[in-house]
């Protein structure tokens, strides 16, 4: 029987690979997800048929409880809250790997407890637990429950280094002692701390990269657990996710023009929390406009590029944005959307939101495609975006975001910015674009402002 189980595992691995491949193309993505979930179903059913599995009560309770929680969370979540939820799911999966390793340790007699078992159990506990607490902190930062700015304290890297060395040292008793339960417990605690310590100094703007990296970790945790159980399915699927996660992380870092090391250890965006910006603010004036001014500019425009950002997500303004675009199009205005690779809280976040509002994805242009067009565009309409349009990234070498590719909105004829306040963006950096002469600031909730705009344009027409 177990040979059939293993054959089913092999089949499921193939489906995972094909599914992942299909997931990376827009046309086949949904099908790919169906393939991957069928692969999972096959793997689960096959495992239940394994001859070693003889008691089912705990498993069935587990599947029902876990399945219900997962399904409710997935169905109820708002599109804006998606990144946070993915972070939580990720932590959940990572912690499951830790628990499997601990459960297996509890079932291993001392003569079965080989060096390989010891190392792989230790690694599963370490990686799985770091994934858990790291993801929970990332969730907190995205949901605004933990301060989003980088939290730094003296000797931070030294402290992390000490924790790391202590963890390495713990592997000695774990490998050598016959029953190192105390060492595993200590490892669990230190890993919990390490996960928090690693993510807390990273700014909110970098959370997408962190989640992608943690996603890779949860794959590696599953992979380590595969070594504990000597199970090829776990190793294959886990390392697939691990590798895919690393590639995705690298792509995101590239989009921000930063190295992974800089993201993880750079404590990005801490510089501007000092008093220097406030001093400058008094000298510069911001032109605050009303809806009517914006209507006039928009009515005169023959081309408009909409630049959505996280503010749009927070205000859930995607539908009214689409309405506005429709009205402008009916007037004969060309409307395009410029999507910065890291706009929002996750790469592709804006695409998901606008797709929800039925904006066809052909209208969404990526940064490289749209940037040359700003010069010939009348109006750039910026909805709750900040760092991704900050010209300081091009010109100001002292700015923490210097070197990040941005959308060249300042080249458009007029720049209309709808924003809640003058507050800095997620990266904590001031934006000189707000003080530019051709910039019209409209303060207030993006959805409210846009609704008024839509009404004004309708009655005017």
């Amino acid at each position, binding site marked *: 029987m177990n040979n059939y189980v293993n054959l089913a595992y092999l089949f499921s691995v193939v489906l995972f690979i094909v599914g992942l491949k299909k*997931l990376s193309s827009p046309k086949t993505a949904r099908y790919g997800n169906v393939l*991957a979930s069928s692969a999972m179903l096959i793997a689960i059913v096959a495992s239940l048929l394994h001859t070693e599995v003889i008691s089912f009560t*705990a*498993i069935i309770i587990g599947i029902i409880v876990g399945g219900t929680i997962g399904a409710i969370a997935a169905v109820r979540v708002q599109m804006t809250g998606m990144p946070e939820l993915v972070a939580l799911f990720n932590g959940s999966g*990572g912690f499951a790997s830790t628990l499997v390793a601990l459960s297996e340790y509890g079932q291993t007699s001392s003569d079965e407890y080989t060096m390989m078992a010891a190392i792989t159990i230790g690694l599963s506990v370490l990686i799985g637990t770091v994934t858990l607490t790291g993801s929970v902190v990332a969730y907190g930062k995205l949901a605004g429950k933990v301060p989003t700015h980088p939290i730094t304290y003296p000797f931070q890297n030294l402290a992390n280094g000490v924790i790391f060395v202590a963890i390495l040292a713990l592997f000695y008793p774990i490998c050598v002692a016959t029953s190192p339960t105390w060492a595993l417990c200590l490892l669990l605690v230190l890993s919990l701390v390490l996960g928090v310590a690693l993510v807390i100094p990273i700014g909110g703007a970098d959370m997408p990269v962190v989640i992608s990296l943690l996603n890779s970790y949860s794959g590696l945790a599953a992979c380590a657990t595969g070594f504990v159980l000597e199970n090829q399915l776990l190793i294959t699927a886990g390392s697939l996710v691990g590798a895919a996660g690393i590639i*995705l992380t690298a792509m995101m870092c590239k989009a921000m023009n930063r190295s992974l090391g800089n993201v993880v250890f750079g404590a990005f965006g801490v510089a501007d929390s000092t008093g220097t910006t406030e001093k400058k603010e008094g000298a510069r004036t911001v032109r605050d406009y009303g809806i009517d001014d914006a209507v006039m500019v928009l009515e005169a425009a023959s081309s408009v590029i909409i630049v959505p950002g996280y503010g749009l997500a927070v205000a859930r303004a995607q539908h009214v944005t689409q309405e506005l675009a429709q009205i402008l199009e009916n007037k004969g205005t060309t409307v395009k959307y410029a999507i910065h690779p890291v706009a929002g809280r996750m790469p592709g976040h804006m695409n998901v939101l606008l797709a929800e509002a039925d904006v066809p*994805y052909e209208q969404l242009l990526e940064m490289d495609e749209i940037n040359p067009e700003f010069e010939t565009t009348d109006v750039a309409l910026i909805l709750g975006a900040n760092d991704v349009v900050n010209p300081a990234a091009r010109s100001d070498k002292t700015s923490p975001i210097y070197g990040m590719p941005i959308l060249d909105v300042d080249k458009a004829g007029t720049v209309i910015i709808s924003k809640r306040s003058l507050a800095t963006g997620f990266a904590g950096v001031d934006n000189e674009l707000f003080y530019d002469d051709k910039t019209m600031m409209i303060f207030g909730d993006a959805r409210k402002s846009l609704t008024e705009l839509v009404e004004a344009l309708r009655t005017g027409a």
Partner: protein
Amino acid sequence: MEVLIPLLFVLLLSIFLGFEVIAKVPTMLHTPLMSGANAISGITVVGAILCTGTENTGLATVLGMFAVIFATVNVVGGFLVTDRMLKMFKRK
């Protein structure tokens, strides 16, 4: 060692495969792909089932049951959320 070597083969080949499969992805799919890959990492549910199902009582089973819960949250939630996102991408 005899057990370890074939497993290392599997590990290294899958890592290379993972790199290749994801080599070219448009930005718009980054979030769904991340969430889909995340659901796949819930494969640890298989480990959890194998661990929990053996004739065993006490702490190991309790740990195993919680492992099944956490892993299933990851799997079910992950795939559903990914599908919700992808459902919204449609052509004009």
